[in-house]
């Protein structure tokens, strides 16, 4: 069994009037190494996009963006960058 397993899956299409909506999700599964008789796994499953098909056959994909997660990552990245900059400045001064 591979360590990381990534899977993109599509759900059942839903009709909204003349528009067909197909949900798409992506899952990451991390199989942690263990001894025989044990199993450990971590799973992250999140919405990826919705595929839309209109009455004229026109297809469109709308991504599902996680604004909360992006804001959290931006805050952490900003704090890490600031800490790294201060550490670098301190090493230069010393």
């Amino acid at each position: 069994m591979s360590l990381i397993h990534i899977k993109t899956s599509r759900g059942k299409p839903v009709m909204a009037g003349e528009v067909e909506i197909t949900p798409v999700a992506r899952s990451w599964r991390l199989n942690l190494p263990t001894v025989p008789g044990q199993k450990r796994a971590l799973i992250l499953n999140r919405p990826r996009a919705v595929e839309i098909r209109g009455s004229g056959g026109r297809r469109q994909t709308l991504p599902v963006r996680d604004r909360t997660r992006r804001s959290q990552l931006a805050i952490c990245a900003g704090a890490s960058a600031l800490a790294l900059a201060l550490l670098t400045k301190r090493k230069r001064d010393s």
Partner: protein
Amino acid sequence: MNEITSSFSEKEAAEMATAMVEDTMERFIDVANVDRVYGEPIAKDDTLIIPAAEVMGGLGLGAGFGMGAVKEKQEERQADEGGGGGGGGGGRVQSRPVAVVVAANGDVRVEPIIDKTRIVLTAIVANGILFLFLARMFRRRKSLFR
């Protein structure tokens, strides 16, 4: 447990324990299904709403079985020779709303759900760690200049 060890061989008991672990793990892996992420569509007048959530989970399982003495043939063992087995595990699954797909009047859009509480908590924790880091850094500087 003595009744069980006398009814099953060591190999059969180990296979049963392994099968139980595998079966539970397969049920947990079902969390990776797309149906767990998108909820049931909700229809109201001409509007259709599909909720979308992020699902995270972790699971750990283990099972083991052993006999007191190693004998090649099961007939050579006695019923009260000793043996035992056990297993355990733990896990957690949590979900968080991410967005809502809204379909109305032939138009489809994705409305994100922003959790302000989570963002503020992240900012507080990140700033707290940064403050501790800076305090430690300046404390070392002061000690150098003494």
